[in-house]
C-alpha cells in the first residue's frame, strides 16, 4: 500500500496510521516518524512552499527508490505545505514491512531525503518578520549516509 500526499491543511497523523496498518495485512512491523513545528525561540509560524510540477512527483520518485532499496509492504509519506503553527505536524512517514529493520531504515532514508533533497522551501516568522531557512550542513551529511 502506497500513500504519498501533500496536504494544505492541518492533519492528525494518528488518523493516518490506523488505516495504513489495516491496509497492509500480514505485516511484521511498522515504523512511523512524525515531524512537528518546534515551539522554540519565539517562532510564531512556519511556511513551506512547494513547486507543484516537481514537488509531489519528486516524493513519488523517492518512494520508488525506497521500495527498490528496502523490502517494504507499504509506505505512507504525507507532507504539509502552507503556513503552520508551533506544535502542528509537518511530515509523517510510515513504513510497513515483514521485518523491522527494513521499516526503520526506510523511514530514516525517506526523512533524510525529504530534509535534504525534496523540493520544499521553508521560512519562519519571528517577532512578526519572515526569514528564509537555509539548508543545514547536517542535511547534506545525513544524505551522504545513503550513497551506494
Amino acid at each position: 500500500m502506497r500513500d504519498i500526499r501533500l496536504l494544505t491543511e492541518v492533519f492528525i497523523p494518528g488518523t493516518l496510521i490506523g488505516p495504513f496498518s489495516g491496509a497492509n495485512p500480514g505485516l511484521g512491523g511498522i515504523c512511523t516518524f512524525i515531524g512537528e513545528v518546534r515551539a522554540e525561540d519565539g517562532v510564531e509560524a512556519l511556511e513551506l512552499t512547494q513547486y507543484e510540477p516537481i514537488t509531489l512527483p519528486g516524493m513519488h520518485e523517492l518512494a520508488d527508490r525506497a521500495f527498490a532499496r528496502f523490502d517494504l509492504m507499504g509506505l505512507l509519506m504525507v507532507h504539509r505545505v502552507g503556513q503552520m503553527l508551533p506544535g502542528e505536524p509537518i511530515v509523517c512517514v510510515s513504513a510497513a514491512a515483514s521485518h523491522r529493520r527494513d521499516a526503520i531504515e526506510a523511514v530514516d532514508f525517506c526523512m533524510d531525503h525529504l530534509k535534504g533533497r525534496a523540493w520544499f522551501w521553508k521560512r519562519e516568522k519571528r517577532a512578526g518578520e519572515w526569514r528564509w531557512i537555509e539548508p543545514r550542513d547536517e542535511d547534506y551529511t545525513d544524505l551522504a549516509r545513503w550513497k551506494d
Partner: protein
Amino acid sequence: MTIRILFLGPLADLAGQLECEVEGPLDWDGLLAFAGPAVAEQLQLERVNVACAGKVLADKTALSAVDGDEIALLPPVSGG
C-alpha cells in the same frame, strides 16, 4: 504567448517579485541577462537549479525555453 518565470523561495525576495513574463525564446545567457545581477549571481551557484516545462534541468546552462514554457528558478531546498 510568452515564457513565464517563477522565483521560488528566497529568490522571490531577491528578485522583488514572484513571477514575470518574457518573450521567447530564452537560453541560459538570456535568462542571466533578464534576471538581473543579484539573481544571476545566485543562478550560477551549483546548488541553485532551474526547471523548464515541469522538469528540473540536468544542465541548466542548456536551457532552451520557448513561448508557452514555464521556467522555475529553484534555490537550495530546506524542507522536512
